[in-house]
């Protein structure tokens, strides 16, 4: 509760930090902020060529299927990569001024969320012009986006803080994210995964989140209740653990940096 009050009184800092995150990332590049939308699209283009033609994956509406997987995944990975290093990057002010340290990971996650919500326009355009159409289920988009936001926030709270003490965390987590890309049904449907080990896929909260996006954008149906409960449950657990770890470790930031 104290944390929420504290964050509220520092809302101006949060706001200017989010702006800085969004503007600063592609500063100096020719296309600027456009890159954050262009990047996932180019990625989609590559997969859309490789998988149907070379690997002979056959899924209906594969292009749209891919886009709905890749864009939320980009949200997840960008926030993870930037969130891991945000405390280290801001060492200068951490050593000089007091402010709630939580602001730093939160601004990374918020800027990611803003980017993602804008990118959803791309998904929508593809749905409309790709013949899939839209439905009332889209009302659930903010809910799933919020869950993904809280999940990734919890993760960067934890790993961003640990990374100050053990710098290897950054590289280990980066590797796990790369691996997780294939452990999440982004390029393939869950059904293509061998049935015996499909339960592993279901342990991954990102599986449920991406399936959720596909349900509302592509299949026009409600995500299953179990799936929903699992997403919310794991997210809250990770967020809670993340905040605990962060609060425990933040006291040493100024000395360790």
């Amino acid at each position, binding site marked *: 509760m104290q944390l929420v009050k504290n964050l509220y009184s520092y809302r101006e800092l949060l706001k*200017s930090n989010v702006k800085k995150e969004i503007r600063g990332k592609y500063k100096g590049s020719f296309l600027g902020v456009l890159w954050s939308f262009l990047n996932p699209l180019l990625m989609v283009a590559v997969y859309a060529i490789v998988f149907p033609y070379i690997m002979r994956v056959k899924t209906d509406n594969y292009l749209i299927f891919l886009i709905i997987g890749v864009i939320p995944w980009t949200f997840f990975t960008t926030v993870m990569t930037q969130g891991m290093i945000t405390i280290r990057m801001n060492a*200068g*002010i951490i050593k000089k001024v007091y402010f709630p340290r939580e602001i730093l990971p939160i601004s990374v996650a918020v800027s990611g969320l803003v980017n993602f919500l804008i990118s959803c326009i791309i998904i929508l355009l593809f749905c409309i012009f790709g013949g899939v159409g839209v439905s009332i289920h889209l009302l659930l988009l903010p809910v799933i986006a919020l869950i993904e936001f809280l999940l990734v926030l919890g993760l960067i709270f934890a790993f961003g803080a640990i990374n100050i003490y053990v710098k*290897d965390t950054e590289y280990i987590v980066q590797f796990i994210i790369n691996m997780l890309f294939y452990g999440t049904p982004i390029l393939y449907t869950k059904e293509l995964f061998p049935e015996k080990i499909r339960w592993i896929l279901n342990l991954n909260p990102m599986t449920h989140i991406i399936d959720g996006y596909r349900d509302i954008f592509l299949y026009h149906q409600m995500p299953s209740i179990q799936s929903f409960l699992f997403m919310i449950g794991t997210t809250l657990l990770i967020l809670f653990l993340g905040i605990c770890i962060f609060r425990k470790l933040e*006291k040493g930031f100024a000395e360790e940096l």
Partner: protein
Amino acid sequence: MNEKEEIAINVEHVTKKFKVYYDKPNTLKERIVFWKNNKAEERTVLKDINLKIKKGETVALIGVNGSGKSTLLKLMTKIIYPTKGKIITKGKLTSLLELGAGFHDDFTGRENIYFNASIFGLTKSEIDERLDDIIAFSELEEFIDNPVRTYSSGMYMRLAFSVAINVKADILLIDEILAVGDQHFQDKCFKKLEELKHSDKTIVIVSHSLDSIRNLCNRAIWIQDGNIKRDGKTNQVIDQYLKENK
């Protein structure tokens, strides 16, 4: 009279130890491979400090280099935390440990005012309210829309000081920054501090310029080797300090 309510800063049994690494292990490999070499020497910088500063007091912390004054100030701002004991502060707190923390060279003076003031916890409307005061105090009207990288170091400091002093915090912690800008600006800062002193602000200053402390503070705390050596009226403490440090 309720005495307890009047205490702005309460330092209770505070001990601070720093770990001094000769070769700090940064990676997992270094931690594992060289675990025997990771001996860290522990240095106790503050030893069981007890201190109560009342609301409205202007207090100076004096002592030789390395005595722990700045560490105590950093503990009060919550940049670092005590190893043992606790520090309770009451009211909004601003620290001027290092001026211009969080300034961005490519942004204009005006943008930096917003950014810097938001680090101190001000909201947009509060900054809007103070913007004119801040600019007027810094005397940088002509340059305020230029990027701060074009500023001279004196101008930079003036802007930073103006922001910090206009935050209107209840507690102001200042570390050795009374030497800001030219004589004219220094006098102005001094006058501003005098003015704050007579309002109900609490001010804690770490400084080596004993003459200005004599004028400004009504209480001085002498810290030596992590202990409070003497605590009392400014002139008496400084006189003894000067006698012993000749």
